[in-house]
Every structure is written in C-alpha cells, then in structure tokens.
C-alpha cells in the first residue's frame, strides 16, 4: 500500500535530516497525483510555509500550492477546540486555561500536549464537522527522533495515567487510529551517512515496539558519484597515478570518492539491516525555493509511477 493512500502520514527522523522538506515534498507528491493534501506542523512550528513563500503560522488552513495546504497547531488552540467539540463547553475550557493552576496542571500531565494535537488531527479525519475541509492526506511533520517517539507513544502514556474519562477515551481512539496501518503511515527520514543511518535503525526498532512500524525510509540529500561507475574512482585514481602534475586532482578525487563511499556504505547498511523496508533516495537540492517541488516530483514518480 502506497504511503500516499494513507489518510495520515507521520514523518519522523533525527534532527537536521530535513523532515520538513520531505513533509512538504510528500504533500506535493500527493497533489501531483490528484489528491488534496495538507502538511500539519505541531507546537506552533512553521518551517513549511516559507518553502512555499508563505509567512508565519496559522491554525486556519492555508493553500500553499495547488492541492497543498499548510496548517500549524498549538496546544491552547487544540485544547480550546477539544472543549468545544468533545465536552460541549465552549469558552469554559478557555476560561479554565487562563487560571495559572490549570495551565500548570495541563503542563503536568505527560503526553497531554501531544494527545491534544494528535486528537485534533484524528478528529479531522474520523469525525469531521460540517465546514471542516476534506483532505485525502495529512502529512504530520513530527518532532525529531526522541520527541517524535514521545509523540507517538502519547496514547500509551495517557492510558497508563488515566484509567477512565474523556482523556482515557481520547487516548484509546488515537492509539487505535495510529496503529491502523491502512489509515496511518509512518515515514522515517534520514541522511546517507553512518550516524544518521544507525540512529534511524534504532528508531525503526522503537517504532516496531510501539506497534507503529515504519512504512518507508526516505533518504534525503543523496548525491551522485564524482565519476561514473564503471570505471569507478579507484580505476580513475590509478589512471591519474604517477603524474606529479596531477597530485592535487588525485587528492580532490580521493576526497570526493571518500564522501561517496561513506554514502554507499550507509545505504548498504540500511539494505542489510532492514531489507524489507522500502527505501527511497531523494536528491540534494541547492535552491530552497525548489525543494518541495523537486522532492515532490521524485516521490510522485516512485510512489505512483504513471
């Protein structure tokens, strides 16, 4: 089942690997294949809008490109919304939230922040109200590895703490939704380097444990070899060898092929350790303004070949 056929795809991975770029690319890929997609950012983050020339963040849906929307959640907005929809207490929750002690209390419940935001997402998919927009795909730009796992384990944290009541039910619903592989997909983003790859392997194992296994490994910023294979850098280096004038060029070639060899090694580690996990290579893109579109085109071609 293609990632693009899920209702929600959670994009996770270690910091700095380009989760937001890949999230934007996935939404563009969905739009290119005839879907309506929305990138969801959490905790007031807004890394994606600037990639499409939009400014700031908004709890309202904004169209960033044709068929691509952006949406940024914060905990207070989601709590307010939860009060309105689930407790039929419009305004009361907001007033409650203004009391310092209540705020401290909401802060003090582990997983509640995550749960409220995930709940809003699940709600839009499973129980939309009249006037809610329809999206075929919601791409959730999740926080970096550690916090991403915390996010996905929020339903469990809550079930451990709250044995009954609305939070317990909320946790149950979200847990079921996240674990349903036909509705929710998980994409892990990594870089073709040793340390990011070993960390993403740990992440894959931990996702497995959470019963939310990864559905794809997206390897971002892959580059081309310095010289074509065959003949390959070793043969070329040999051809250059012995010419004193060519020593500087040999050194550069050595450096470039070391970089490429490190990339190949990292990729083969993935192939070896998680052979059944689909692996997609995404190109390094120099111009920031083109990132979502270049990555989106590659993803659309691979995920849904025409």
């Amino acid at each position, binding site marked *: 089942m293609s990632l693009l056929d899920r209702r929600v795809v959670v994009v996770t991975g*270690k*910091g*700095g*690997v380009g989760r937001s770029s890949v999230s934007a690319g996935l939404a563009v890929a969905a739009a290119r294949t005839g879907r309506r997609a929305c990138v969801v950012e959490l905790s007031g*983050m807004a890394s994606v809008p600037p990639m499409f020339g939009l400014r700031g963040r908004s709890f309202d849906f904004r169209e960033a490109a044709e068929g691509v929307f952006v949406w940024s959640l914060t905990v207070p907005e989601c709590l307010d919304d939860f009060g309105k929809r689930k407790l039929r*207490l419009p305004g009361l*929750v907001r007033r*409650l939230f203004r009391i*310092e*002690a*209540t705020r*401290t*209390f909401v*802060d*003090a*419940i*582990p*997983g509640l*922040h995550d749960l409220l935001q995930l709940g809003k997402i699940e709600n839009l998919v499973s129980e939309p109200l009249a006037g809610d927009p329809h999206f075929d795909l919601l791409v959730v730009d999740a926080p970096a*590895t550690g916090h991403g796992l*915390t996010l996905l*384990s929020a339903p469990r*944290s809550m079930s*451990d*703490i*709250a*044995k*009954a*009541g*609305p*939070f*317990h039910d909320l946790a149950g619903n979200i847990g079921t939704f996240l674990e349903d592989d036909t509705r929710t997909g998980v994409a892990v983003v990594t*870089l073709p*380097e*040793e*340390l*990011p790859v070993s*960390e993403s392997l*740990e992440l894959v194992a931990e996702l497995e444990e959470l019963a939310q296994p990864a559905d794809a490994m997206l390897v971002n910023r892959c580059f081309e070899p*310095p*010289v*074509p294979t065959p*003949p390959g850098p070793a043969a*070329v280096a040999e*051809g*250059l060898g012995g*010419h004193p*004038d*060519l020593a*500087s*060029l040999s050194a*550069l*070639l050595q*450096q*470039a092929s*070391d*970089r490429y*060899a*490190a990339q190949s*090694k990292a990729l083969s580690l993935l192939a070896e350790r998680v052979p059944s996990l689909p692996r997609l290579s995404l190109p390094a893109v120099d111009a920031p303004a083109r990132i979502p579109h270049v990555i989106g085109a590659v993803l659309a071609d691979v995920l849904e070949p025409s």
Partner: protein
Amino acid sequence: MTHAHVDVCCGVGGTGKTTTAAALALAFARDGERVVVLTIDPARRLADALGLDTLDNLPRPVEGVGPGTLHALMLDRKRTWDALITKQASPETARELMANPYYQAVTTRLSGSHEYMAVEKLHELAIQGDYDRVILDTPPAQHVLDFFRAPERIRGILDRSLMRGLLEPGTGLRAAATRRALGVVERIAGAGVMADIRAFFALVGEISPGIRERSAAVAKLLRSDRCRYWLVSDADAPERNDLLGFLDELRTQDMAFAGFLVNRVQAVPRGPFPDRAALDALFDDATWRDVVADLEALPERARARALAHRAAARELVRAAGGAPVWLVPEVPGGIRTVEGLSRLAPHLPPRPPTPL
C-alpha cells in the same frame, strides 16, 4: 564560590553538535585543563567517537588526551531524577515517590524533563571542584531557550505552591470557584489521575524548598560570566535564520555568546590542476570521455563549495555584528576515534578563530 568554566553547545539537530562538543572538550584537555563533557543525546554517538564502550551517568576517563584530562558521561534521566529525590527527601518520602505512577510518568515522559535533568547534572559537575571546565551538548532544539524554559516549566510543576490552590482549594469564594474548576478538570482527566497526582504533590511538598533553592543556583550559573554559549552549524546547511534566532534569544537573556562553530567545511582546493587537453591525453579511450568531463569539473565544484561555505560564514559573522567563527574541516566518512577528534582540535577554541 567559584565554579568551573561552562561551555554550552547549542544548535538545531544534525549539525554535528555532539561531535563538536567532544572535540572542543578534547581541545581544552590538550591545552592542559581538566575537562568533562556531558552529552544528553540519547544516541551513543559520543561513546563511539570517544572510543568508550559505555557512557553512563558517571564520568568516565578518556585515555590519551594529555597534558590535561578528559571525562565523558551521558545523562541518564531516570537516575538523575532518583538521585535528586534521594538527596532532597527523607528516605521514606523518596521511596514512596519513586513508587508513585505519576512520578514514573513525570521522570520518563514529561517533555522538558530531559532538559531539567541536564542542567541539574551540569550544575553538579560545575561545582564539585574536580573539573576546570564542563562542556555541555544540548538536545536538538528549535529555540535555544527551550533548554532553559523547559527546566523552569518542570520546576513550576514541582513547586507545590502553584499547585496547592488547585489541589487544596480550602474555603471562601475563590476556593469555591477553584473547586468548580477542579471538578471540570477531574471530569476531563478522570478521577484516578487526580488521586495519583495529589499523592505525588503531597510527597513533593517536602522537597519543594530544596528544589527552589537549587534552581536559583542553576539559573545563576547559566547566566554567570563563566558560562559561555557556542552556536554550532553545518557548512552545507547553515540554517542561518535559525542560528540568528538563537543568537537573538541569547542576547535577550543576557547570556554570553562565545562564537560560531561551523562544521564540515570544505578546504579550498590548491592546484595546479590539469586542463582538458592534459586529461584527454591521459584518458584517450572513448569510454573514458565522461570521466574526463567529471574530472575536469572536480576542482571547480570543490572550489565553489569551499567558497560557498566561507561566504555563508562571513554572512553569519556580519549578521551577528562581528562575532568570531571557527571553521572546522570536513572529515570524509565521519569521526569515530579520539585521533579523529584530535585532528579537529587545531581548528577549535582555545585556538584563535579562523581568519575569513
């Protein structure tokens, strides 16, 4: 009382912050100081780079770094919490607290708990007198202040005076309103939660004063002139806006900014390089034509990358109003040994910054 020098490495994730923290620590140890480096990243990257099989909550010596000394440790959040509780509370309270389900949740899952324990540990290392310098690797953050706000948030939670109103409303008009609010909260959260949390805060009451006193000391340490902040970035992904955002926050908070450390910088290629004719003569077979084109392009590509890295660094310096920058060379294939880290030392403080 004077404490050790503190160097905090900040930056978004994926910029080689952990490796840089280790290399910086090694550079100061090579300079003769007694250094300890604390990583709080759950991945065992630092252990790999330092050639240690295990990193845990106790500083472990790293061999071959003289004339100074270098110790490394990785924050164990749970153990640091337990140690804090054991130190501050009576044995019975500590035992009861550790058995409370809410305590388990707070220590392992509450966001900000990691950061809180990191500054706790930092403070402990800085005042214990065994080290001249503590180097701190921070968790990936979008805002540098997350690191300082998170502990404040947790302290707020632990500070019982804030929660008292909610948990023990007492009598009177305000109390009646609070009780009503509490009723709604209970309705939302479920009654069992409140029982655990009440028990937790009843226990925490005993340690509140100690925690408050300690946090004042930690806050003072983080703003003292012996505590400096480094901003770490990656040459290929400078994320300039993020870095300058970090810098603004540091300055707003009156924290001492020490400079930029830019990782994985391409060296400027030094020729002479052969021209097309020379390469054609060398590889005259038609099948090598593509190779010749790529080889001819190599120096230009490397030069363009090297110049782009330097231009980005100059731009950072300019935007930051003339802050110093250290350019740390790229090591293809990454760093996995102490020798590898050593090769970075000449490019890092305490050596002077790179002329641009």
